[in-house]
């Protein structure tokens, strides 16, 4: 990311709209702010977070590219505006507020689903946006339920396979994990057709990146084994 998205001209433009703060954990005794990563519960490096001017954590970007940073910033601004209007008593903003809350991870899937179910007479475009957001939220919720439980991982993989069959496919950041579990499931159940769908996702996403060349090659080999014939 440092030599990638953080080094692009687009990132330099993006930093005009925010205050970029760099925290480096050094393990140097007495280094100023060394404990800050613990304060924010940083569990791995690198981690990105949006904070308000009081240092309150707002959310993490949905991805590691500048477009994701900008999208999250836009969502935060939209959410702040909607929240202000709702708090001022403006009516009819529930669906848009829910959409913003889902996008920022401020509401978990079960609650979001329950709120959506109560919404009547939604405009088709708003309803479609909410359905996409809910699907992504559902996938994130299922992934969060796995923890370190391998059996649970298999169970969720089977659920994801069923979602693919229903053409319910996430578009958000969780898509990588979604398709990873599909790979496992398809390999275990020797479902070459399903495996190919996941393979296509990874080739589309990472096929141009040299560092993933080996991983993609191994996936293709597994697919060939499952299918029993070579692919191009």
């Amino acid at each position, binding site marked *: 990311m*440092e030599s990638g998205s953080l080094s692009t001209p687009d990132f330099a433009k993006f930093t005009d709209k*925010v*205050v*970029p703060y760099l*925290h*480096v954990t050094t393990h140097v005794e007495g280094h100023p702010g060394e404990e800050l990563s613990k304060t924010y519960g940083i569990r791995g*490096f690198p981690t990105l977070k949006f904070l308000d001017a009081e240092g309150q954590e707002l959310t993490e970007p949905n991805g590691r590219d500048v477009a994701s940073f900008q999208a999250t910033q836009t969502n935060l601004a939209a959410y702040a505006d909607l929240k202000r209007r709702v708090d001022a008593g403006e009516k009819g903003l529930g669906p848009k507020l829910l959409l913003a809350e889902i996008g920022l991870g401020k509401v978990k899937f079960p609650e979001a689903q329950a709120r959506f179910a109560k919404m009547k007479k939604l405009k088709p475009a708003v309803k479609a946006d909410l359905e996409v957001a809910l699907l992504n939220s559902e996938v994130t919720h299922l992934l969060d339920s796995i923890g370190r439980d391998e059996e649970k991982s298999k169970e969720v993989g089977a659920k994801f396979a069923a979602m693919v069959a229903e053409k319910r496919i996430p578009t958000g950041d969780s898509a990588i994990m979604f398709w990873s579990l599909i790979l496992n499931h398809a390999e275990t159940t020797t479902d070459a057709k399903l495996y190919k769908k996941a393979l296509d996702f990874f080739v589309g996403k990472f096929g141009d990146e040299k560092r*993933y060349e080996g*991983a993609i090659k191994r996936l293709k080999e597994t697919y060939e084994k499952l299918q029993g014939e070579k692919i191009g």
Partner: protein
Amino acid sequence: MKTSTLLSTVVAGLVAVSAAPAQSDQADLQAKYEKKISEDWVGHGGWILDFDEALAKAKKENKLVFAYFTRSYSP
């Protein structure tokens, strides 16, 4: 190949926070930090290294802080 290998590759950017290496020399750690913050991407992003300064600027300019947490003690 088991997909866990790919998984570990695609999420390789997230490296678990580990304890400080007991044998590491403080001067070496300081040198690693200085090397880190002199990298091109740091200058490119105009990153502020002081947390309080970043918050004060955010307040003054009515902006959000975009915080990037990384490490210098190991690659």
